[in-house]
């Protein structure tokens, strides 16, 4: 059941549960409230889960994410107008990271958009922004010949991330490429050839599954979109096939993984109060595309002089700067406050604290020495190019 009519409003329910909820409870997961969903924060150890993704593979339940379809002869034109990127330029089977901008250029949400057909797109939104994205897409695309369907309740999402992800997925039984006469070998070959930010229409257990080579961890990996009633079966199949190589991972490790990979998190590095260029996402906005799009005028004008910009920070020791901590240009009483931390953690892979912060442009030069107020103590931190971690070739 879709809520294309806008009559249902599941976002107001306080404790939404994933189709994999029972599986997580049986596995002893700890839960956290995330955008109104009860989702696993960890199964046993954040650090072990983080390491599993860097060294072998981790399995994430991301069923809280929003999946919104835009379908119709003018779907590409509609999305070119509604979003910051040029979605008409991507081929069928391709994905693109994009932004939904407000008229004033602020970021309403960051998205991954999959072109699943000539006149068909799937827009994947953050759970917290699902309703606003669906609403904005409906409004913005209404002059075009296309329709918007919020399919979030009918789509489960499982991510398999890490250097062993490809092999595990190939070894998992029950997959085939979509269409008549498919078999397991076709699927294995198609997976092998699937490039980053490409997706493959496949089958699992006779039901459609979109297999995308995308992720939010800085590792190779896949995101698997499928019907909620097949989610538990796929989860168990991946665990059985992978054995000790596949570790179920909660949102805590997902956050430290994406932070090391320098990827923004909506509500931390991205918000309605910043223009994409301030967060280093200027290239995501396709100013070269023809015609108007929502936010264009504001983006062309650019941010105000002195508007803060996003930087990476690294520090020594073990005390991590955290979201909201203030950043200064010195450790004395006369130091100037230059910005604020948006995310931070002791990097499990690197062994020292890493953080992202919005700071004044004159403090943003790589190598600049800044200081973070960590609960009353000024800790030295250097401006460091993002990402902090990049996987080996």
């Amino acid at each position, binding site marked *: 059941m879709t809520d294309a009519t806008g009559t249902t409003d599941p976002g107001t329910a306080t404790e939404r549960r994933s189709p994999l909820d029972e599986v997580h409870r049986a596995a002893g997961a*700890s839960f956290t409230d995330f955008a109104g969903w009860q989702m696993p*924060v*960890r199964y046993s*150890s*954040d*650090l072990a889960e*983080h390491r599993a993704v860097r060294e072998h593979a981790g399995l994430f339940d991301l069923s809280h994410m929003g999946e919104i379809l835009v379908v119709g002869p003018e779907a590409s034109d509609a999305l070119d107008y509604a979003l910051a990127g040029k979605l008409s330029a991507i081929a069928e089977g391709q994905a693109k990271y994009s932004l939904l901008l407000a008229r004033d250029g602020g970021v309403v949400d960051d998205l991954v958009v999959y072109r699943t057909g000539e006149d068909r797109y799937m827009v994947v939104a953050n759970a917290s922004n699902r309703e606003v994205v669906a609403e904005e897409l409906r409004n913005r695309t209404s002059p075009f010949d296309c329709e918007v369907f919020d399919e979030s309740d009918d789509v489960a999402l499982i991510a398999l991330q890490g250097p062993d992800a490809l092999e595990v997925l190939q070894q998992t039984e029950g997959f085939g490429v979509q269409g008549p006469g498919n078999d397991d070998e076709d699927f294995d070959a198609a997976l092998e050839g699937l490039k980053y930010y490409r997706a493959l229409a496949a089958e699992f257990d006779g039901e459609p599954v979109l297999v995308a080579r995308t992720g939010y961890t800085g590792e190779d990996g896949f995101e698997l979109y499928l019907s909620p009633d097949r989610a538990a079966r796929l989860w168990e199949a991946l665990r059985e096939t992978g054995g000790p190589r596949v570790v179920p991972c909660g949102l*805590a490790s997902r*956050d*430290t993984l994406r932070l090391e990979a320098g990827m923004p998190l909506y509500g931390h590095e991205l918000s309605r109060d910043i223009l994409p260029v301030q967060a280093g996402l200027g290239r995501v906005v396709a100013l070269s595309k023809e015609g108007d799009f929502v936010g264009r005028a504001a983006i062309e004008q650019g941010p105000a002089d002195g508007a803060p910009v996003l930087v990476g920070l690294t520090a020594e020791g*073990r*005390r*991590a700067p*955290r979201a909201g901590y203030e950043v200064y240009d010195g450790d004395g009483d006369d130091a100037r406050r230059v910005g604020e931390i948006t995310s931070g*953690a*002791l990097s*499990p892979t690197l062994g020292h604290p890493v953080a992202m912060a919005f700071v004044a442009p004159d403090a943003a030069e790589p190598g600049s020495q800044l200081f973070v107020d960590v*609960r009353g103590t000024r800790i030295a931190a250097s401006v460091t190019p993002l990402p902090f971690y990049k996987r080996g070739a």
Partner: protein
Amino acid sequence: MTDRTDLQYTEEHEWVKVDGETVTIGITDYAAEKLGDVVYVDLPAAGTAITSGTVVGEIESTKSVGELFAPVDGEVVESNQAVVDSPELVNSDPFGEGWLLKVTAASLPKLLSHDEYRALTGE
């Protein structure tokens, strides 16, 4: 293995073990699990005077920061260097090797019994 029913507890999820005038302090398994993987522990040095109810240390995990409240008035005689070097001991053995402070205390405030603490955490 420490018998947890012999310990006393605080509402801030510390445990207290009384042995004459020496009081050993740690955080409970409940607190350790809520924090997640502990990656940094900051403890007061030996000789530091502590006052019940005040923040005397920090226990930081990958996700959050927990404050260590002094459960008693007293003076620190030893802080657990093993935990400072290997903060994961707080997770792996919170009632044993993961102890945090030894304190001399002249008197003890009213603390929670094991059953009262269990009722507090709903376990």
